[in-house]
């Protein structure tokens, strides 16, 4: 079974893409059949992923299965298409197919009655296919193709309700912001192709070993990191992710929390050998990751929209993962990616459940007391929040712990402090959300809320269960099985430290307690805090005015540039073109007199040409031969 599936892992993306084609071409009139087909295809992909994971983890650690075929062959350029299957791939395949399957099932309930269900499932299938293709790619070129494909799917799904102005804008914003990052990524790919003549990960890794010219590798690595910055919404290019919440909530869960945004992290992990060869790049990654984590967590504190809080939380956690990558704790980063995928999608799906129950209400201050109406949603949400906050023994605890441990072990004290503080903030804003939305006093809108159908609750329960146990795979209880397989020679894998475990648990509990005090017991008035720290609050509430800065920059820089270019276009480019046109017209005006409409004149011209040729030929013969 493994012998067949492993070389044929391309079947995993193929099945959803077939579903996409069938739905898009034939079945779009029958939404139920489309949904069933899509879910069926992702289920098959899930089973195949399970088989592959089984195959990979039953083999000795470090086994890499690579299958490749020549796609383009010309002098100086060989492009391959291929599969690269190792533990990293297997984990990603599992995460993606699991979350995708659950999200698609959940969508049955969430999207009920939407007129665009067929196209929704078509996009979902296409996204699943692209994401899986990205995961199994064995070279950067192929990865880039799927990288762009997931971007397209993200664009389509963010703008799924394209009737909404904000959804359209959000889709365009996401797309354009990603262009900036992808441009750097593409440049890096070209540089690598030129420098090493290959894009294959294995071959690149081999040639990296003997490569000493680090000065040129620094910009390449940083350019390569531009892709993850865009895709994983790291600091300067993070602006699209919160807006991406305009899409359907299951989409946010799948694409903008669990899988696609993690692709950047995955890329860093995949190309870890490049980054780890360049310490400067590693520092950049770590700093950007850490800054993003802190930055987003502080914003999350003040947001009122349930999905936006989760979005900033996602940003923060992605920053966490990046920080882990940057400090060399690759395993920890990947581990956090995996656990985060589960509990964050759980949180999003829970938020979706709330939104459905509240009839499209997303403001947490208009909710309250939902725990009585929606017990399953409430409890699974709390489990997700606890996991996110890092309460043992839930999954988030283990992965976050490892990152903090890695930071400390690699000597990045500053990053450790940031990480710990972010953990505190995380617990604070998550439980702020929970206390306000689920336990606060009943608000008018929450009166009629009631638990959703099993289609939506069962995926929540499953994800909650996974969130609880997923962390154990890398816990001392299971002898760090995850790290054992993922571990790469370049990574730093410290041994767990009890002190850090306890301290981080305490920090998380402190955050929860503070939230409890402020929002549940209201010992400290939230309003008071708001007034006392009004300046900070405003900055945070307006997300550090990043969007405004970008808008200002756009208005000044881009528009100013555009004005210059417009002038250039009108007077220089157009002037040139017009000059050509005038010259042509004047030439025509002059030459038209040769066209006197009389056939003999034309015959005269023709024979003049012939005689001219003859005379010149004769002259040539005369000069050359005589």
């Amino acid at each position, binding site marked *: 079974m493994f012998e067949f599936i492993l070389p044929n892992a391309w079947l995993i993306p193929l099945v959803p893409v077939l579903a996409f084609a069938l739905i898009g071409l034939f079945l779009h009139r029958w939404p139920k059949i489309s949904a069933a087909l899509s879910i069926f295809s992702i289920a098959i992909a899930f089973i195949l992923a399970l088989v592959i994971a089984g195959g990979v983890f039953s083999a000795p650690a470090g086994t890499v299965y690579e299958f490749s075929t020549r796609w383009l062959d010309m002098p100086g350029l060989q492009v391959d298409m291929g599969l690269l299957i190792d533990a990293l791939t297997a984990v990603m395949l599992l995460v993606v197919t699991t979350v995708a399957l659950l999200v698609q099932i959940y969508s049955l309930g969430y999207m009920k009655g939407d007129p665009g269900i067929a196209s929704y499932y078509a996009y979902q299938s296409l996204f699943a296919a692209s994401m899986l293709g990205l995961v199994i790619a064995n070279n950067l070129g192929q990865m880039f193709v799927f990288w762009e494909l997931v971007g397209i799917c993200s664009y389509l799904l963010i703008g799924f309700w394209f009737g909404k102005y904000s959804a359209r804008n959000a889709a365009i914003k996401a797309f354009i912001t990603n262009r900036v990052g992808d441009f750097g990524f593409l440049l890096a790919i070209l540089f690598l192709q030129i420098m090493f003549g290959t894009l294959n990960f294995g071959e690149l890794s081999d040639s990296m070993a003997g490569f000493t010219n680090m000065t040129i590798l620094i910009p390449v690595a940083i350019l390569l990191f531009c892709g993850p910055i865009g895709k994983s919404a790291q600091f300067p290019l993070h602006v699209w992710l919160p807006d991406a919440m305009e899409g359907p909530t299951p989409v946010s869960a799948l694409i903008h929390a669990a899988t696609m945004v993690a692709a950047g992290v995955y890329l860093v992990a995949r190309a870890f050998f490049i980054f780890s060869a360049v310490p400067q790049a590693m520092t950049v990654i770590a700093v950007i990751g850490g800054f993003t984590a802190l930055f987003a967590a502080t914003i999350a504190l003040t947001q009122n929209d349930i999905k936006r809080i989760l979005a900033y939380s996602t940003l923060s956690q992605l920053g966490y993962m990046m920080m882990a990558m940057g400090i060399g704790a690759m395993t920890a980063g990947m581990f956090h990616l995996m656990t985060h995928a589960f509990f964050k999608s759980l949180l999003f799906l829970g938020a979706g459940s709330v939104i459905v129950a509240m009839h499209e209400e997303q403001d947490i201050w208009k909710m309250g007391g939902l725990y009585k109406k929606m017990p399953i949603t409430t409890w699974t949400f709390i489990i997700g929040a606890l996991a996110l906050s890092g309460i043992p023994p839930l999954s988030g605890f283990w992965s976050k712990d490892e990152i903090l441990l890695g930071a400390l072990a690699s000597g990045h004290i500053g990053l450790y402090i940031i990480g710990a503080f972010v953990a505190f903030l995380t617990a604070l804003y998550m439980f702020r959300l929970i206390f306000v939305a689920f336990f606060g006093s009943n608000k008018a809108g929450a009166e009629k809320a009631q638990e959703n159908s099993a289609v939506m609750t069962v995926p929540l329960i499953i994800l909650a269960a996974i969130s609880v146990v997923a962390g154990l795979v890398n816990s001392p209880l299971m002898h760090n099985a995850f790290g054992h397989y993922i571990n790469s020679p370049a990574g730093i894998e410290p041994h767990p430290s009890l002190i850090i475990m306890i301290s981080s648990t305490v920090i998380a509990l402190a955050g929860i307690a503070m939230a409890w005090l402020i929002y549940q017991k209201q010992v400290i008035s939230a309003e008071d805090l708001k007034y006392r720290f009004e300046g900070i609050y405003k900055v945070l509430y307006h997300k550090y005015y990043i969007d405004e800065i970008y808008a200002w920059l756009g208005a000044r820089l881009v528009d100013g540039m555009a004005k210059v270019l417009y002038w250039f276009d009108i007077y220089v480019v157009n002037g040139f073109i017009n000059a050509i046109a005038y010259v042509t017209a004047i030439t025509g005006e002059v030459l038209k007199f040769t066209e006197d*409409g*009389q056939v003999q004149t034309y015959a005269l011209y023709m024979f003049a040409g012939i005689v001219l040729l003859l005379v010149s030929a004769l002259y040539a013969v005369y000069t050359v031969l005589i």
Partner: protein
Amino acid sequence: MIGLTHYLLLGTVVFCIGLFGVLSKRNAIAVLMSVELMLNAVNINFVAINKFITPNDVTGQLFSIFVIVVAAAEVAVGLALIISIYRHRKSVDLNDFNLLKW
């Protein structure tokens, strides 16, 4: 002693006379006749070269027959055109036909 050169010179003379006629005559039919002269000059060259350079072959003659065939077709169509134009414009003077002037 008459050789190939003289035949070719004869062809040249006839061709040039025909060319001058084409370029200088006013009457469309005269132009057509001059074109026939030019074609004849070409045929003289074909046959003469065939006779002097590849005497055991008749390809030159063959091609001159093709030229004659084309000339016949050309004359038929050309004259039909001239008659057609004459019917519309009551003239065969080429100087009157300058509708395509600038």
